[in-house]
């Protein structure tokens, strides 16, 4: 039975005797006897009907047995020591005694209260905030959208099966939420384990969570994530409480409220951040119990208690990871009239004279922030003033601004206040014209002056102003320069007293450019440029890495330093690797062109640059330079004029040459590394120097030497390698087809024969039986 129904039950006065107010203290005095609940429930056939009062306290009604229908014994509350039905004293007498004692105690208390001086009592009252004093403590007291409260309560009730082990009977009623929440898992938990309550500040989200938790029979544990924002809090405080299921010294199950969760850490990828830990906690699924494996203390248990998270901005980047795992309830601003009524009621009890108009103004200024309204009212009360409109205006001057987005601040700068807002604030025309205080306050309150300055900078040229002399723009420019001087002085010298002047340097944009109906579009150019810069930095980084990897010698290390790389190395290397080569056959190439080509190949290999074959979007094959340093000579889609565009055929030629050279180099490297001994003669070493250094000439003779070097490798090396090296020297006919080679296979065969002639003995290990099932399968079954 949902507690909504429970409330209805508890409202019936005849169930509790004369009146509910009388019964409440009696019930309260017994509610501590929770140990008897289970006894009682098991003994009674049908069990008692449990109910909750407005305050969330438990009340139990015993069912009338059918035999005693006629008798006048009314329903009673929680029984006393109900060990057996044969009591010495009949139960009704015990109840009478108890109520008498309670009455006596209440009487003494009231007399004590009377004896204490009333002034001190009042003073005590003055020390508490009105917000705390008039905080709703019952479900029905909650102000605002009832639907939100009901949604929240339904979600909490979905945990009943998991936490209390009984099924909520209210399920039978068809609700919009039900089918959604019906997909319960093995622990009978709702689909979403976390409730995310979001909304503007001061509307009573925290209060709602507390009231509902108490209503549903939970003990509340609250953590303010803006204080304790590290992931360790989850491990240290939340997990133990959730696993033990109840708070220390309490029998009620615990419900966690994480307040201000958008202040928690968690935006990063760090797996130890608060949000990540929370998600892990939620997602954790116990594995199937395997045998009787000992469960160590490290073994984590699944989440079995509800968690309510409260935040102001549900779209905060911090919460991005959490959001998919939550059931999201948006708390919206209740209708002004409700707030005004509540405020009037409070003022009435506090003995404050109010004007209705003043109250609605207050609510309008505060944008529905009930907490702010109450604080303001209390502030006025302490000054012993009546609440009138002018006083409300004065008092709300310093009221906390709600978090304004960057866009709305920019809108305020570039366009005058909307008429509605003016009306809401109840400003006179003269007051409306005073903008400096208003705008500087807004800018200063946001704390993002630099972002606003960038916004101003991007937007002021867009404003359509008829100004032949450009004097407006000039002045705007001056102000921006002023801002820049101030902020740079502030950040570079650490002179933060300048901070307070920064907003004022941006205020002049209002008189200069404000225009009704101006729409500020978010300009992304700044961000886009930042992204491009980052991407380019990455390219430089990968280039540095290539250089470091390729040159085993430290010859080029001096090029890697930051300004040298960008200013002296990258621009020139782009020119160097784009020489004028005609794409012609390898064989027909002229000797000077051959020299250029080999030099280019050497350079590219030395700096570990590659041409990668790729298929473009239009299906055409291209060779892409990797790392793509050629973007540094491409501006806005146009290439620098003095650098020839290397064509596909040229790149193909170069790529092939590079491949051949790399194979040779690799062969030498393996030879060198494998032998571990110095090369047989100086020749190989010299080859090394030639290959790695660019200074020496690359001649065709080297190829023969390299081939010899490759042949000296072990015979087991891939013969492909040798074949490829050979293929470079194979004479090619006009169409580029190799002229048949006859010599090399003969050679190979002879060496093979020689090998076989040796006596060889090998050991073959017998593995044992394989249990694999073999059966014939046709190829068709794979297709």
């Amino acid at each position, binding site marked *: 039975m949902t507690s909504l129904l429970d409330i209805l039950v508890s409202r019936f006065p005849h169930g509790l005797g004369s009146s509910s107010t009388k019964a409440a203290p009696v019930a309260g005095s017994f509610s501590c006897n929770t140990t008897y609940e289970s006894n009682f429930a098991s003994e009674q056939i049908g069990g008692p009907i449990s109910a909750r009062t407005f305050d969330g306290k438990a009340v139990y009604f015993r069912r009338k047995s059918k035999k005693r229908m006629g008798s006048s014994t009314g329903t009673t509350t929680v029984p006393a020591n109900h060990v057996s039905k044969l009591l010495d004293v009949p139960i009704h007498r015990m109840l009478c005694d108890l109520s008498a004692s309670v009455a006596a105690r209440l009487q003494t208390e009231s007399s004590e209260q009377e004896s204490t001086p009333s002034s001190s009592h009042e003073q005590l009252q003055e020390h508490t905030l009105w917000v705390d004093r008039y905080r709703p403590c019952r479900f029905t007291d909650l102000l605002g959208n009832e639907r939100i409260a009901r949604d929240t309560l339904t979600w909490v009730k979905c945990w009943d099966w998991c936490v209390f082990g009984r099924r909520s009977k209210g399920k039978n009623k068809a609700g919009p939420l039900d089918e959604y929440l019906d997909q319960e898992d093995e622990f009978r938990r709702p689909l979403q384990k976390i409730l995310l309550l979001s909304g503007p500040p001061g509307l009573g989200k925290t209060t709602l969570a507390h009231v509902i938790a108490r209503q549903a029979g939970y003990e509340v544990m609250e953590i303010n994530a803006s204080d304790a924002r590290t992931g360790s809090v989850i491990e240290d405080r939340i997990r133990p409480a959730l696993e033990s299921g109840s708070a220390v010294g309490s029998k009620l199950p615990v419900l966690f409220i994480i307040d201000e969760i958008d202040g928690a850490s968690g935006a990063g990828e760090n797996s130890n951040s608060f949000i990540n830990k929370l998600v892990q906690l939620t997602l954790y699924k116990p594995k199937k119990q395997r045998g009787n494996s000992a469960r160590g203390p490290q073994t984590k248990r699944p989440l079995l208690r509800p968690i309510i998270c409260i935040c102001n901005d549900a779209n905060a980047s911090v919460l991005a990871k959490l959001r998919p795992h939550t059931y999201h309830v948006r708390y919206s601003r209740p209708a002004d009239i409700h707030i005004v009524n509540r405020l009037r009621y409070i003022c009435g009890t506090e003995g404050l004279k109010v004007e209705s108009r003043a109250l609605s103004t207050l609510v309008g200024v505060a944008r529905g922030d009930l907490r702010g309204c109450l604080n303001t009212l209390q502030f006025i009360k302490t000054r012993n003033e009546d609440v009138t409109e002018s006083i409300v205006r004065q008092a709300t001057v310093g009221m906390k601004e709600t978090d304004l987005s960057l866009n709305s601040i920019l809108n305020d700068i570039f366009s005058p206040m909307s008429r509605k807002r003016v009306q809401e604030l109840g400003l006179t025309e003269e007051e409306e014209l005073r903008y400096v205080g208003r705008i500087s306050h807004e800018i200063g309150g946001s704390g993002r002056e630099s972002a606003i300055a960038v916004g101003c900078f991007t937007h002021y040229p867009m404003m359509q102003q008829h100004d032949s002399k450009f004097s407006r723009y000039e002045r705007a420019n001056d102000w921006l320069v002023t801002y820049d001087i101030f902020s740079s002085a502030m950040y570079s010298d650490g002179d933060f007293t300048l901070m307070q002047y920064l907003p004022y340097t941006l205020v002049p944009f209002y008189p200069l450019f404000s225009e009704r109906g101006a729409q500020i579009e978010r300009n992304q150019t700044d961000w886009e440029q930042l992204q491009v810069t980052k991407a380019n930095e990455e390219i430089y980084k990968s280039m540095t890495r290539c250089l470091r990897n390729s040159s085993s010698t430290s010859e080029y290390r001096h090029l890697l330093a930051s300004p040298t790389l960008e200013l002296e190395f990258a621009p020139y290397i782009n020119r160097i690797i784009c020489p004028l080569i005609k794409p012609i056959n390898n064989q027909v190439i002229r000797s000077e062109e051959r020299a250029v080509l080999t030099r280019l190949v050497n350079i590219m290999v030395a700096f570990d640059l590659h041409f990668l074959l790729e298929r473009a979007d239009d299906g055409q094959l291209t060779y892409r330079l990797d790392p793509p340093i050629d973007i540094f000579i491409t501006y806005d889609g146009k290439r620098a004029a003095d650098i020839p565009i290397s064509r596909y055929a040229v790149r193909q030629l170069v790529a092939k040459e590079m491949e051949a050279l790399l194979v040779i180099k690799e062969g030498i490297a393996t030879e060198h590394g494998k032998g571990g001994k110095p090369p047989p003669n100086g020749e190989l070493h010299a080859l090394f120097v030639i290959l790695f250094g660019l200074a020496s000439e690359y001649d065709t003779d080297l190829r023969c030497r390299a081939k010899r070097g490759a042949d000296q490798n072990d015979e087991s090396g891939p013969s492909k390698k040798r074949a490829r090296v050979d293929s470079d020297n194979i004479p090619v006919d006009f169409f580029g087809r190799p002229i048949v080679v006859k010599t090399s296979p003969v050679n190979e065969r002879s060496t093979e024969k020689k090998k*076989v*002639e040796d*006596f*060889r*003995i*090998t*050991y*073959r*290990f*017998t593995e044992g039986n394989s249990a694999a099932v073999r059966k014939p399968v046709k190829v068709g079954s794979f297709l």
Partner: protein
Amino acid sequence: MIIPITVSPPLSTGGGSKLPPPFVKVSHEEIMLIELQGSLNVKAAEPGDRNGKLVGYLRMDETGTKPTLEIGHHLLEGKIVQLVKPIAVLSRLKIVDSDKLEEQGEGESTGTDKGEEGGDKGWGISAVVKRKIVFGKRPMPVAQ
């Protein structure tokens, strides 16, 4: 037919060179059996070529507990195991025919059947094998 078998002290240590293939003489006295889990692949041009060739190196460490066998580019690690039943190595005493040496593994038959028939023929126990070296693990590749 009764075949006489004489038990003599390990007589033919001198002729130990003629031990059958699975046996190896370790130290001065003991003869051990070698067990391989696997087979030896011999690649030779002609069958006769394999005679007298080196198969591998059997090494024993100082403690005498860890034998290793190196065959080709494989290194095998073995262990020494006590045989459940000892095995006797029999050799024919008087070689009448050109029969080669044969071996019979019969631990229990030692000393049971004794007869003096056919005095020119007889078998002598050349050795009793009590332990064996088992190479049961997967071989490790060795760089030469």
